[in-house]
């Protein structure tokens, strides 16, 4: 009996059931807090026609960027995709579709999706190309557009620590989109730096409760830095 134990033993087990044409909601901002080994597993599996919901699409050769190499992505839902030559090529060639979504709206779409709220009104994007074709409603003299929630067949998440029940703690700004993405997957898969003994995480300091987590695996991470900026000591 597994009970609440979410631990799986291999990356292939972690991503079992992923099929062509599915939607994946991914945590991460830039290369920070991205589920790099789960992404690598998606590349190994070779699934195609994927819709990926993620703030960015990695860089050439790392993060979600590696899924462009074999043209596995059909559509990206992102707020910013400027870091990636292969992305640009495939977009211009019409091989890739992109739905640009304001960053806060994207976070809220994931949050709403996981929280059972099908849509919400926001002032963000009203009167801009983002608002075109969307329902407009006025509240207290201000105009808002209706934005629909997002859920995925899978959510892929990177956390710092977890216990076997899938209670998660994120490290620093690697938190970013991960807590919302974790709630928005039919199957939520989490990779962590460390699985700690049950009971050793303070219940009041859990960022994501284990109820959202279906599969958990411990990995090792490159954690590539996108913009290395330093000051002299």
């Amino acid at each position, binding site marked *: 009996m597994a009970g609440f134990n979410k631990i799986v033993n291999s990356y292939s087990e972690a991503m079992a059931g992923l099929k062509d044409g599915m939607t994946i909601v991914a945590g991460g*901002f*830039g290369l*920070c807090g991205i589920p790099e080994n789960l992404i690598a597993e998606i590349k190994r599996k070779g699934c195609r026609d994927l819709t990926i919901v993620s703030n960015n699409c990695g860089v050439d050769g790392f993060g979600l960027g590696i899924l462009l190499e074999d043209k596995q992505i059909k559509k990206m839902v992102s707020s910013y995709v400027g870091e990636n030559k292969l992305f640009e090529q495939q977009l211009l060639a019409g091989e890739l579709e992109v739905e640009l979504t304001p960053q*806060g*709206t994207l976070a809220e779409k994931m949050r709403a999706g996981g929280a059972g709220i099908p849509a919400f009104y926001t*002032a963000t994007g009203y009167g801009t190309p983002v608002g075109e074709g969307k329902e407009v409603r006025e509240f207290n003299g201000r105009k808002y557009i209706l934005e629909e929630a997002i859920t995925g067949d899978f959510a892929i998440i990177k956390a710092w620590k977890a216990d076997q029940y899938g209670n998660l703690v994120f490290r620093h700004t690697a938190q970013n*989109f991960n807590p919302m993405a974790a709630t928005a997957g039919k199957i939520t898969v989490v990779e962590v730096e460390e699985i700690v003994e049950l009971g050793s995480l303070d219940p009041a300091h859990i960022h994501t409760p284990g109820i959202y987590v279906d599969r958990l695996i411990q990995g090792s991470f490159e954690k590539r830095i996108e913009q290395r900026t330093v000051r002299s000591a």
Partner: protein
Amino acid sequence: MALTREQLAQRVARELQDGYYVNLGIGIPTLVANYVPEGIEVMLQSENGLLGMGPFPTEDEIDADMINAGKQTVTAAKGASIFSSAESFAMIRGGHVDLTVLGAFEVDVAGNIASWMIPGKLIKGMGGAMDLVAGADNIIVTMTHASKHGESKLLTKCSLPLTGVGCIKKVVTDLAYIEIHDNKFWLIERAPGVSVDDIIKLTEGELVVPDVVPEMTF
């Protein structure tokens, strides 16, 4: 003389007030952090999920898990908090950030801003800019007054796709400090040595010029 990037940042920094929570965009707005007036405290918000952004790390402090919205490695200041992107944009959208400073391609007399998309060029995305301009009451736009070809960026109507509508009230350019209300630009200050005529020439939208336009001092 038109203001340098550093002077632009210095001028914007004079709008900071003690106790302000501030979001600074990428480019010139980032430089504003270097000119916080003495004797006041401000806290910098970075929309990826950090309130209380500190300076860049030393080589020893560098940490891949600690970045700002420009994806640069940073530190957390004493008293900082870190949270999810949804929480971060709740504080932005909810109007809790006191001042937002960002760049733009164009603004117009109605307070509209265009800052993210030039049709025909590669479109990279709006990031958090649309949320920031929709959520903030107090926004300062920093930009050059005109393009390299001398075309005004202060217009009757923005020509590029918008980032937000009716949201901009203050613009600091390399030539002037301008406020926007009642469908007009209002000239408040000019850069040192820049004539009012030069500013009028490079402002396409209707500009109200008072009898005396003080020069900025640095």
